[in-house]
């Protein structure tokens, strides 16, 4: 039932604690969105889950294969889309899935293109396909849409939502876009403070229901300045 469990997580860089005793549990098949000001430790959190950073204290338990999508597509420039996706395949079964996941992200027509021939949105789709080829139980997405223009972002948000539903994956999505978090997530947490803790946590369909204003306040948005503050991506 539990996909990811962080307990008493401490992580410091150069004597400066990013986390000091962070607790976080992600349920299976849940989509968790993590919001927080930049520098609050969102990427560090994902990197600890993925094993890219070693915690200084505490435990990280991950139950299942992990797929990671970076903020930049990080494609190998010498491989075409197909080659980049196939790079992640280890078994014949996974290799057989390459064409399937390329279709899933809507890149079938561009499978033979090199990264330099892709638009930003297409490159990000390719990065997503690479993360999907192992059929991961847990998908970690670190601001995957931050570099895209508004329309492309909406398109890819829908694609991510469909893919997560279709693959029954657990997803942890870091974003700085409150609307994106509310659109995609079953649960939204806000990181804040030094060292960072979870300063706000809200569940969709929970009691009380999800409160956007509370999330915005937790992020330090001043709502008394009027309606204009609402709906702004922070």
């Amino acid at each position, binding site marked *: 039932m539990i996909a990811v469990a962080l307990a008493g997580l401490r992580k410091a860089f150069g004597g400066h604690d990013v986390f000091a005793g962070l607790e976080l549990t992600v349920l299976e098949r849940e989509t968790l969105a993590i919001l927080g000001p930049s520098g609050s430790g969102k990427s560090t959190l994902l990197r600890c889950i993925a094993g890219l950073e070693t915690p200084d204290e505490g435990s990280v338990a991950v139950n299942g294969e992990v797929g990671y999508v970076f903020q*930049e597509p990080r494609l*190998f*420039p*010498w491989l075409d889309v197909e080659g980049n996706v196939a*790079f992640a395949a280890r078994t014949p079964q996974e290799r057989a899935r390459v064409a399937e996941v390329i279709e899933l992200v809507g890149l079938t027509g561009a499978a033979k293109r090199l990264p330099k021939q892709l638009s930003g949105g297409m490159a990000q789709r390719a990065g997503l396909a690479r993360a999907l080829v192992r059929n991961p139980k847990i998908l970690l997405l670190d601001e995957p849409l931050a570099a895209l223009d508004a329309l492309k972002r909406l398109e890819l948000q829908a694609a991510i939502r469909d893919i997560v539903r279709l693959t029954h994956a657990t997803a942890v999505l870091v974003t700085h876009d409150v609307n994106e978090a509310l659109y995609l997530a079953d649960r939204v947490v806000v990181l804040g403070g030094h060292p960072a803790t979870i300063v706000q946590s809200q569940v969709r369909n929970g009691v009380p229901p999800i409160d956007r204003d509370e999330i915005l306040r937790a992020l330090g948005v001043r709502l008394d300045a009027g309606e204009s503050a609402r709906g702004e991506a922070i």
Partner: protein
Amino acid sequence: MVRFVLPVALVALWFASTAAGWVKPYQLASPGAVASELGTLFASGQLQSDVWASVERVAIGFACAFVLALVLGSLAGSTRAARLAIDPTLQAIRAVPSLAWVPLILIWLGIGEPAKIVLVAIGAFFPIYVSIVSGIEGIDRKLLEVARVLDTGRLKLIAQVMVPATLPQLLIGARLGLTQAWLFLVAAELLAASRGLGFLLTDGQQLSRTDEVLVAILLFALCGKLTDMGMYALERRLTGWADTATA
């Protein structure tokens, strides 16, 4: 069109000055004399033999340098310890103008083929070595992280990430190395040779045959240009994926 103006003017001047007798044939042979010398050397087979001798020395010397640079460069690029063990020494050797090794090489190896090949190899080695080390150091950390997050094995990491990522630098180094190889070949063949384009140069000089000297110069230019074009074509073919201005 404008690119042809200067060369055509120079050749015309060459024609005019030799035809009008402003310069003597022992100072500068006429274009006709150079062409006929080219024909004579070709007919006798000496031209082919000299070109082949030079190409062979460049090829062997370059190949030795390439293999050695690949091994040492990969070692120096792979771990910090290996880097510390290898690099300072090589950088110190590199600081010596390479032709300063000539007397030692001649004392150790005499004036035969090995000395020439070693000299060519010394010339070609450093550009290749330096570019491999800097190529490995310059590999995008973010791409290495992708490999890490995918638990990529060591062999696959080397073959499918490190090698292709280093290839553009390696090929640039190889091209520079090849240019250096020709440069050092001239030096080696000028010192002592009984065959080769450098021999044609010294032979022409001793006999005051400027036509022969000019034939040798033309052939050097041709060989250098052809091998450089070959290298460039290889570079374009193997690294066409690079997102650069010329691609």
